[in-house]
């Protein structure tokens, strides 16, 4: 194994970065162990991060649409006063499953799915680290999401809010199995989320292309690295709290029962210690998309790379210090609240820093106004507005008026849709050519953007006013004499426009998949490594893997300094590099495709779902899990032989 750094011939000609890919691809017709078996077996056993990532993205988008349908039903119910279309029982399930769906089975998994697909490509890796774990994470996530929606369809969906406050969700007031489905969904998404986070961190730390030092990593990779660390630190808190809820409900512990020495507020502390960082787990990847899109469409490297990286890290730290601002109306000590006010305001500074860096980049750049950039401009408008209402909510006195009103509904949608979904749609338009090899249609893209932008603001801006006029959240109806009717109708009409916009997107994707313009390796003439390989990338991504010497490898002379030779394709081998400087360290043989992750995920899901009904499921259900895991890790004789042979040769 050598790293050829002398390849002067590889230095791209100015503007001719596509030639790098052209030069390398003829090399790559043998994918060996990277390729999947054909047919159904290949489909269910694949561990290629691109295939898993694609279905992860598709599934998360499906749950986004499903959650959107629930929102549409709620807007239908609220569009006029005293409406009796939907009763309280169904309405409570709708908003609970909407929130749970959007937070737990759309937003975080979608961002992680984008990481599964793009992080390995951006760092020049041949696959994601622990690819079987990623396959397992996907299946577990899919089964969890299906369980949630099955419960809703069977009219036993959770109905205590996505935050499931005790005692309302506890054994005494949350009757039936509804809150158990909620708590077990959390278990599913925790397992999946933690596994993806661990894989992403490992990929970023150990599988980067030689020469890609930490300070040459694309900003999206930084954003997802920071997000993954947040996942690792925040999810244990919700894991503990949801498990305690299950125990309260299933075996009669009293963690949250004040009558038996438990504490109802304990739930809120533990939930928001996770819940607030979760908002940033959704938001930071969005910032990562923006940091990739802005330089490409301003035709210059981003201004303030280091400032942006430090801002991401600062946001992650601060995000763990704000959770009490969800609890200002409870009787936590007043002095303590002021610290959380200060922390909640300070977190605006890293975000402002990034905004200023992007504006500076655009200011000094050459603007290419395509749909991805349009979505970024929409992001600016909506996110800044949402961020400013966030500062209002950080102030204790004002929060006391605004907390749990429609003002907060407006705020959180401005932040999450503006901060994450707009950049995500920008990212769809930006990377769709990489994933499919075809461009999305630009005209439909503009329709998509403008309908979304206008519809969103019409739907959510009036909610600020409704909140100030006293409309609380989570009400299934309101009386006509409250005067809230007209603005609610406007909001519902806005929601219709948003639905139209998402339909335009779906049509655009469906059309472009079949008859979009062929994209080539690098249609935007962007700077990062994912554009150096074919669109869509072949199994194993890079044949051979590249070595980089610059932060914008495809824009700078000598950006790609050579390629890695001497790695086998069968068994699939990758180069492990050192953490800081990405110096070549050793050769790693990747695992091969197998169906055991799927079987293990099925066993795990059976355990999780049955334990809603009986604690004995944990005992008996762990046996199939153990069996499938043992089979998964059982060494294969033929593979061992291959490895040994390879070692002898080298």
């Amino acid at each position, binding site marked *: 194994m050598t790293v050829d750094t002398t390849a002067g011939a590889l230095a791209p000609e100015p*503007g001719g970065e596509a030639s790098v890919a052209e030069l390398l691809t003829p090399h790559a017709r043998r994918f060996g162990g990277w390729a999947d078996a054909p047919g159904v077996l290949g489909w269910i056993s694949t561990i290629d991060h691109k295939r898993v990532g694609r279905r992860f993205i598709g599934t998360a988008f499906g749950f986004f649409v499903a959650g959107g349908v629930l929102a549409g039903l709620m807007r239908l119910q609220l569009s006029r006063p005293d409406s009796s279309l939907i*009763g*309280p*029982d169904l309405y409570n399930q709708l908003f609970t499953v909407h929130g749970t769906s959007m937070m737990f089975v759309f937003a975080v998994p979608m961002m992680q799915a984008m990481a599964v697909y793009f992080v390995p490509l951006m760092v020049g890796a041949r696959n994601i680290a622990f690819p079987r774990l990623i396959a397992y994470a996907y299946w577990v996530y899919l089964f969890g999401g299906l369980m949630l929606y099955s419960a809703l369809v069977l009219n036993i969906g959770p109905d205590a809010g996505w935050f499931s*406050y005790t*005692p*309302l969700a506890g054994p*005494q*007031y949350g009757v039936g199995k509804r809150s158990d489905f909620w708590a077990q969904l959390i278990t599913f998404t925790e397992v999946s989320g933690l596994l993806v986070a661990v894989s992403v961190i490992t990929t970023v730390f150990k599988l980067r292309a030689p020469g890609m030092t930490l300070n040459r990593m694309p900003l999206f990779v930084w954003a997802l690295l920071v997000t993954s660390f947040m996942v690792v630190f925040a999810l244990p808190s919700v894991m503990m709290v949801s498990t305690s809820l299950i125990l309260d409900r299933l075996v009669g512990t009293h963690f949250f029962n*004040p009558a038996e020495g438990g*504490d*109802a*507020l304990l739930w809120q502390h533990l939930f928001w210690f996770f819940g607030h960082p979760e908002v940033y787990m959704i938001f930071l990847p969005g910032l990562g998309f923006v940091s990739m899109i802005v330089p490409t469409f*301003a*035709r*210059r*490297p981003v*201004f*303030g790379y280091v*400032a942006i990286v430090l801002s991401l890290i600062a946001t992650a730290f601060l995000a763990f210090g704000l959770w009490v601002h969800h609890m200002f*109306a409870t*009787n936590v000590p007043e002095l303590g609240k002021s610290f959380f*006010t*200060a922390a909640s*305001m300070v977190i605006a500074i890293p975000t*402002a*820093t990034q905004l*200023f*860096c992007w*504006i*500076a980049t655009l*200011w000094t750049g*050459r*603007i*290419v*106004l395509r749909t991805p950039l349009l979505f970024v*401009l929409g992001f600016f*408008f909506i996110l800044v507005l949402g961020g400013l209402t966030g500062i*209002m909510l950080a*102030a*204790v*006195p*004002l929060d*006391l*008026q*605004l*907390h*749990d009103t429609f003002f907060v509904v407006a705020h959180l949608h401005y932040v999450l849709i503006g901060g994450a979904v707009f950049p995500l749609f920008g990212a769809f338009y930006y990377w769709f050519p990489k994933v499919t090899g075809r461009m999305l249609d630009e005209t439909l893209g503009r329709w998509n953007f403008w309908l979304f932008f206008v519809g969103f603001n019409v739907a959510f801006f009036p909610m600020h006013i409704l909140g*100030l*006029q*006293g409309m*609380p959240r989570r*009400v299934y*109806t309101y*009386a006509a*004499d409250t005067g809230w009717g007209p603005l609610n109708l406007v909001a519902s009409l806005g929601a219709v426009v948003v639905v139209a916009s998402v339909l335009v997107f779906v049509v655009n994707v469906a059309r472009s998949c079949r008859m979009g313009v062929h994209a080539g390796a690098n249609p935007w*003439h962007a*700077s990062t490594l994912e554009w150096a390989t074919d669109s869509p990338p072949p199994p194993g991504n890079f044949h051979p893997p590249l070595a980089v010497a610059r932060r*914008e490898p495809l*824009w700078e002379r000598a950006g790609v300094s050579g390629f890695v030779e001497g790695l086998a394709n069968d068994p699939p081998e990758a180069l492990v590099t050192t953490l800081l400087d990405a110096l070549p360290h050793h050769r790693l043989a990747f695992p091969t495709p197998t169906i055991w992750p799927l079987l293990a995920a099925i066993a795990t899901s059976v355990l999780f779902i049955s334990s809603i009904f009986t604690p004995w499921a944990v005992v008996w259900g762990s046996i199939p899990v153990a069996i499938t895991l043992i089979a998964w890790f059982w060494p294969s004789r033929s593979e061992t032989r291959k490895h040994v042979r390879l070692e002898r040769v080298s």
Partner: protein
Amino acid sequence: MDEGSALSALVPAGPQAAHIHTLWLVMLAVCALVFAAILGALAIAMRRAPCGDETSEPDTSMIGNDEPAVRRAVTFGIAASAALLITLLVTSIVIERALAQLPLRDALHIRLTGHQWWWEATYDDAKAANVFTTANELHIPVGRPIVLTLEAEDVIHSFWVPNLHGKKDLVPGRTATIAFRADAAGTFRGQCAEFCGYQHANMALMVIAEPPERYERWAAAARTSAPQPLEPLAQRGQQVFLQSTCAMCHTIVGTPANGRRAPDLTHVASRLRIGAGTLHNDPVTLSAWIADPQRIKPGVHMPAHALPSADLQALVAYLGTLK
């Protein structure tokens, strides 16, 4: 909402809400300014930068070089943001102190308990005989501070009367207090602001601020036992009340009915609304409510009563005497 009743955080009727309203105005002004500045900068950037297309040669000349003018502009932006945030933080803390400094001399103490989905209010007094209980409507004297002691019987609720003050949660197993004052007479609508189950939407609380002398008249009346019915129809209604399931949950002081599971009805006829703000209080709505509360407020803990219509009429007539 009833004629003249108010529900808005933007129309303060007391010092606490007024302080918060001041903070709102400061925040709104600063945030509008910042929004305009950032979007303005973005608009200028988009206008002044030349247009290109995908094939435009990327400008890499700044790699490895400082961009002092841009760096200064970004630094200025960050410094200005920090300065504004500190201003807002200080304003917030000043307002918070102002809220905490409401003078509480001669305060009226009320214990407010949240139930699924109604409010129980017990007016405290140094003389035990003067303590009385009512439900879903607070009468308070204008100009006198009110201290509410907040407790919850079942799940978490939140007390919120936007014209008077912000929220305070009622958490089971914990006791919280909130102090406010009404400086103008009026009827202010409050609403449970923490999701509390099926009928969270219909858990309103009316706060009626009135001149002290009128308040005293109301309180004096509220301390009395229920009047004995004089008319035969009402007398029969009382019998219906005491002999059916009503008395198992409701209290009428002066009769054997002393259930604590549901609102005190001693002076129910004097209230504006029934069903915690759900319906206007008149004989028609009242008999519909008694006959089938589940139709009006699905999930409410009051069962339907299949009373013969004569009994129902008598019962409504009796409740109508409980002024």
